[in-house]
């Protein structure tokens, strides 16, 4: 048994040696410029809403997020976002548009199993963990914040 595990180790090492490597520099560059570009669109919307509709504060942030989520969902629906994602990797996953994509894409995919058991129940297959851990993290940070100000 021991020699078998050792053989396996040797094999796995050999595989990792000949495995094609991800071109990290290229990936990072693509993620950087596409992610940055998406953020620029967000910032442009922010400036636009500020000057045209004279919004400010939470309202302004909310409207910008809503627009970006809409755009993410729209581009997913017309089949463009997955192409952007293929090119940009993390650059299009991390912004809020990527979150919209991760909700809309399973919803589209599982529509064939019906609206309740398919679309609605599978909608958060990918985004679910983000929401769960996001909520947990915000509770923990909130608690920490509260305790810090109680003590200080």
């Amino acid at each position, binding site marked *: 048994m021991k020699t078998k595990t050792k053989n396996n180790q040797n094999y796995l090492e050999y595989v990792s040696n*000949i495995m094609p490597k991800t071109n990290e520099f290229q990936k990072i560059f693509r993620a950087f410029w596409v992610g940055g570009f998406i953020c620029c669109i967000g910032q442009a919307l922010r400036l636009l809403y500020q000057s045209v509709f004279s919004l400010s504060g939470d309202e302004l942030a909310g409207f910008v997020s809503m627009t970006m989520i809409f755009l993410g969902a729209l581009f*997913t629906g017309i089949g463009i976002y997955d192409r952007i*994602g293929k090119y940009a990797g993390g650059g299009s996953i991390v912004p809020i548009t990527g979150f919209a994509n991760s909700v809309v894409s399973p919803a*589209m*995919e599982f529509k*064939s199993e019906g609206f309740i058991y398919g679309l609605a129940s599978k909608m958060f297959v990918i985004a679910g963990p983000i929401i769960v851990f996001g909520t947990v993290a915000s509770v923990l940070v909130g608690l920490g914040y509260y305790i810090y100000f109680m003590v200080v």
Partner: protein
Amino acid sequence: MARETVYFDKQPKITAVSTIAGQKEKSGPISEFIDEFMDDDRFNEDTFEKAECKMLSHIIGKVVEKKNLPLGEVDALIAGDLLNQIISSSFAARNYSFPYIGVYSACSTMSESMIIGSLLLNGGHMENVICATGSHFSTAERQYRYPLELGSTRPPQSQWTVTGAGACLLSNNEEDIDYPKIVSATFGKVIDYGVTDANNMGAAMAPACADTIVTHLKNTKTKPTDYNLIVTGDLGVLGSRIVKDLVWEKGYDMNSNHVDCGEMIYNICEEEFQGGSGAGCSAVVFNSFFYKKLLQKRYDRILFLATGALLSSVSSQQGESIPCISHAVEIKR
């Protein structure tokens, strides 16, 4: 000893084949050998699963039609696919009235069904058996990976599931002398070298494939050069390299006459990375390109090994490594 290899003295013949594939395969290098192409991925159905089922049903009908065989003369259909509970094949079988043997061996279903069919024919139990399998990119993605529209990247070791299906008709008929014959076969063992990366199928499957190749060569006392070609199923570029290394380690050199169906089906560019995979990959390539080359007598003897990774999305999530299998079929002209 050496009971993993079986010899068929009646030499069942492959008397007809039928293949269908998608648009992506149409632009590949062997498209001229494939019978038909679907105009769109859904094949005029409303879901991809139904399309996969229709593909299988379609080629089963075609292969019978090509041979002008009355439907009552088909003794059995041996088929399988990648979907849970092999629904595509079973649902395709309900369109026909012949006995159905559902098999699952992941992407090595083609060679497994051919061996079972040959055994039934060789034993004199049956006269005409259809072996069929297929896969669909969109159904496989959905079952094993992510939704199609999710903007995720594929790692460079990944492969692309072939949209396509292939079927062949095995017959014992005395008149059909001038067809490729199945002379022997080796059942594979389940082998797991501990690869856990579900994207790296080539590396996971190569040891199982190498083991079956070496077993077959040993049992039949042949050398790789005795075969025109040793055809593997869907190891891809990386897996092909590994299998050649592993077989070489055992003292056999098959560098000059090994080909992989996964490497042949696409003009490999960035999107497919290592090449094609899926049950449909070996089924389409074998039943189109290799069958026609055998018919034209370009090849006299080939060893065909479809390779399968026996994982499920649950087993991967539980951190299990990927057990793999490969069955070998030796075909002579």
